[in-house]
């Protein structure tokens, strides 16, 4: 069977509805009797919560209730949210109460919720709720948090250090002791966020007759959300249905389970009416989880030929006030540093620290961009000091394709040894460099310099563990109408899940893509699910779709052969028909086969025939699937203003076999935009008292259409030998090495001034300050 759909640039099934304004996002949904919510939030980063006076709010016409912690049902009233990803190194159970009880820990933490006829009225009332706090000293910086005498982020915890752990292998001390060259660097990578254009949203409705609680949530993980809610409400899992409808972007923050996702259903239960909460952008800035604020001290030891002998360092990670996603993100960062290089000895000590800011959880890249930034900056330094070409330094240290599978020597965050299954890193870099016209760049740079222009080029390489387990199920069922129903726990926030899974199922089952009826992200449609994060859906759901599709294919062929009276080997499945390729080519439609498969009441099925034409598969990956890639950024720096323009951006990307190149290219391009944001624009700033300073799109800068060039994207497909489809994840690769490549390019552009760049985002102001310190402007403005 040839690849008809798999690997094709199939246009997306999701598009027509979204383009004509017929998307169905949570706020588009209306229910009879629906009420609206607005949360009352702490204006303090750290304070004791004394009392809440709701009377002024309740007096406002149209207000139905003001709910605080004591108004909630048990167990959520007094028990903190379950810890999703516990780890033995975490010293204290550190999750929130859904509504604050005695203490608040970050600006924006929810304290109460107002339920009213409209959001307008709910906001009026929320402003009228009188909450009394007793301010406590707040921790605004993770470096300050570990100093002697630092304020405590949690009054009850003696230390702000939540976890310390080390990732290491080989003899790092020996490597450094005898090294001909050692180079060190200090790096600062600032906070940023996913900032999907749709904010968070929850609509909850309880049907008293069936005691079914239905929750629509703009979430990446409806099944996880349902389990959390069942725990917090003390309800049977089966009495809750969570649905993720159209979701306007995820990028990580929507994978977390938030307090609001528990409080709104509790309100709906309490009031006996549907309740809708749509987060506004200001709330999103305060409360949606963020990423980074990491301080790295790293060192590399190399020999005279620039071959790496060892890498070691320390990382300080700002976790914010809680750890809803455990310590996954700093762990991933620590495990990603070695990347595609042979590193004989490695040691990274990580300290995860509490502050009074909103928690940090994985955002596109999930800690890997920081790791890649550290590694690639070190390699650029090696090249500079040893006067070698930066691509050459990398080339000399690559893991070679013959060395696959390559055991790095660490445990990955999935609990398994970090073993790269496949990849051709030299080819990836070679491809990207060729596409970027790297060879001729020095000439271009010299010509530009003659014109007084400063251009530079930078390289970033990465390896990314994707396709994490435990599973993502897919059910395929042929319907009596002839259509093929597919259900999956996979979700969609723009990555085209419906389209890619349809391609796989259509290919296996032999139906048309348009005859597939798919239910995504609905706990009522499939019993078990996990959700979208860590670039896992293509591997998990993709392979489940393959296995379920293959099983249904087998069943269709068997039944058709029996009915048509031919050998199974004579049956072909195409366009929803089973056709016997012999004689006068009799055929039978899938719909009729489905009806036959339902049997006749009272009559046994023939031996060997299963009921219905369906199969549910939960493919379980044995380990992560390792993607890789090389990015090459070419930039121009206006040395007078510090302004940076990206002239050209080239990507070579290995995400295994590609299901739909249109979609994968879109993911890479979109990921690069986040990377550009991280490198040049995005910075969630707080003051030393943990008060957020950037709380609107005027202050927190997202890249615009004029900031993101169209990337040249080459696919280097090394097939993943570990899963039947041979695929790897593709959602984050565009982001991971972008900051490294761009900052490297800026440094290269400014090499006449010998400026060193070690932070992201790198703002024009910092560039000018660095140039001034290097004496660049001395001659310029003689008074």
């Amino acid at each position, binding site marked *: 069977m040839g690849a008809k759909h798999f690997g*094709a*640039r*199939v*246009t*997306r*099934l999701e*598009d*027509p509805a*979204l*383009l*004509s*304004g*017929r*998307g169905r*996002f949570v*706020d*588009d949904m*209306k229910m009879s009797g629906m009420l609206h919510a607005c949360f009352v939030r702490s204006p303090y980063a750290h304070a004791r919560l004394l009392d809440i006076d709701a009377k002024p709010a309740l007096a406002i016409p149209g207000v139905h209730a003001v709910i605080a912690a004591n108004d909630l049902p048990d167990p959520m009233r007094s028990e903190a949210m379950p810890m999703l990803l516990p780890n033995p190194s975490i010293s204290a159970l550190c999750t929130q109460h859904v509504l604050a009880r005695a203490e608040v820990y970050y600006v924006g933490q929810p304290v109460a919720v107002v339920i009213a006829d409209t959001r*307008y009225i709910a906001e009026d009332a929320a402003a009228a709720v009188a909450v009394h706090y007793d301010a406590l000293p707040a921790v605004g910086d993770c470096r300050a948090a570990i100093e002697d005498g630092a304020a405590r982020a949690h009054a009850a915890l003696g230390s702000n250090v939540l976890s310390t752990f080390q990732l290491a292998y080989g003899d790092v001390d020996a490597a450094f002791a005898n090294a001909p060259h050692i180079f060190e660097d200090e790096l600062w990578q600032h906070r940023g966020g*996913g*900032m*999907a*254009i*749709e*904010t968070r949203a929850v609509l909850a409705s309880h049907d008293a007759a069936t005691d079914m609680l239905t929750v629509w949530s703009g979430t990446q993980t409806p099944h996880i959300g349902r389990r959390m809610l069942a725990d917090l409400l003390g309800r049977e899992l089966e009495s809750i249905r969570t649905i993720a409808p*159209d*979701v*306007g*972007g995820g*990028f990580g923050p929507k994978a977390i389970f938030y307090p609001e996702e528990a409080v709104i259903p509790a309100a709906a239960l309490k009031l006996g009416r549907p309740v809708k909460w*749509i987060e*506004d*952008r200001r709330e999103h800035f305060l409360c949606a989880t963020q990423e980074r604020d990491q301080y790295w001290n790293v060192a590399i030891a190399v020999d005279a030929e620039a071959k790496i002998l060892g890498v070691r360092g320390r990382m300080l990670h700002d976790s914010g006030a809680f750890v809803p996603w455990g310590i996954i993100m700093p762990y991933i960062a620590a495990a990603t540093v070695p990347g595609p290089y042979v590193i004989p000895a490695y040691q990274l000590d990580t300290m995860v620290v509490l502050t009074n800011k909103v928690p940090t959880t994985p955002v596109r890249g999930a800690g890997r961009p920081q790791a890649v930034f550290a590694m690639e900056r070190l390699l650029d330094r090696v090249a500079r000091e040893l006067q070698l070409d930066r691509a050459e330094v990398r080339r000399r240290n690559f893991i070679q394709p013959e060395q696959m599978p390559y055991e790095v020597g660490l445990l990955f965050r999935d609990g398994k040894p970090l073993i790269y299954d496949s990849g051709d890193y030299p080819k990836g870099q070679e491809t990207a460099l060729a596409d970027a016209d790297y060879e001729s760049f020095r000439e271009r740079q010299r010509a530009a310099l003659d014109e007084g222009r400063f251009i530079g080029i930078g390289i970033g390489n990465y390896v990314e563990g994707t396709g994490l387990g435990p599973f993502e199920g897919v059910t395929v069922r042929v319907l009596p109408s002839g259509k093929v129903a597919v259900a999956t726990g996979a979700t969609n926030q*723009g*990555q*085209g899940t419906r389209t890619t899974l*349809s391609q796989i199922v259509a290919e296996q089952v032999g139906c*048309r*893509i*348009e005859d597939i009826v798919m239910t995504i992200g609905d706990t009522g449609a499939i019993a078990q699910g996990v959700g979208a994060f860590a670039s896992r859906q293509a591997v998990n759901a993709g392979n489940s779709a393959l296995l379920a599709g293959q099983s249904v294919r087998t069943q269709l062929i068997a039944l058709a052969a029996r009915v048509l009276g031919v050998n199974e080997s004579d049956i072909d499945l195409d366009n929803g028909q089973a056709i016997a390729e012999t004689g006068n080519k009799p055929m039978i439609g899938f719909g009729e086969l489905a009806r036959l498969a339902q049997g006749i009441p009272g009559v046994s099925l023939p031996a060997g025939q299963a009921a219905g034409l369906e199969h549910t598969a939960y493919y379980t990956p044995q380990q992560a699937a390792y993607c890789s890639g090389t990015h090459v950024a070419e930039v121009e720096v206006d040395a007078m203003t510090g302004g940076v323009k990206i002239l050209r951006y080239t990507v070579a990307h290995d995400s295994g076999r590609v299901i739909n190149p*249109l*979609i994968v*290219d*879109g993911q890479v*391009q*979109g*990921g*690069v*935009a*986040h990377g550009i944001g991280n490198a040049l624009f995005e910075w969630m700033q707080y003051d030393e008292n943990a008060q957020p300073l950037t709380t*609107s*799109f*005027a202050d927190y800068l*997202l890249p*615009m*259409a*004029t900031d*993101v060039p*169209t*990337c040249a994207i080459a696919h280097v497909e090394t097939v993943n030998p570990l899963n039947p489809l041979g695929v790897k994840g593709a959602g984050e690769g565009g982001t991971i090495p972008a900051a490294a490549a761009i900052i490297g390019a800026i440094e290269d552009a400014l090499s006449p001034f010998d400026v060193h760049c070690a932070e992201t985002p790198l703002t024009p102001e910092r560039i000018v300050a660095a140039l001034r310190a290097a004496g660049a402007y001395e001659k310029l403005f003689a008074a």
Partner: protein
Amino acid sequence: MTVNGKAHARIVESRLTLADFLRHELGLTGTHLGCEHGVCGACTVLVDGHSTRACLMFAVQANGCEVTTVEGLTPERGLSVLQQAFVDNHGLQCGFCTPGMLVTLTELLRENPSPSEDEVREALTGNLCRCTGYAGIVKAALDAAQRLRGETPSRSPASGGGEVS
């Protein structure tokens, strides 16, 4: 107010924004709210033909005006040339910013039927996208411009599953 060619008369609270009026009073939920402070452009509609942030206008201000939303840019059957160009060029992922993009591009192409890539990008700076990295949107705009100028035969609107080279 005339919305997508249909006249409406309502009495509303002064502070009800045009965006909320369109979405909740008229049920035209294609116009989205992404920031409510006039930066993201997800709420962009045409008011008397001009691209406007519906989150920064009160419904009462649009009294007597003609408003066009993404629903009004969509033909009875199938997709417009611009919408089809988005399909063919992967101009959307989550779709949340998309209606605003379509409205802004409709204005651009009406004013400038032959925009350069730079002109397209500059026209789109008032519309933020977090998914696509803009490349597909820009391609779609240039592709649609070409088709509308009659330089490429219009494709018949394909249902999902069509292939693009």
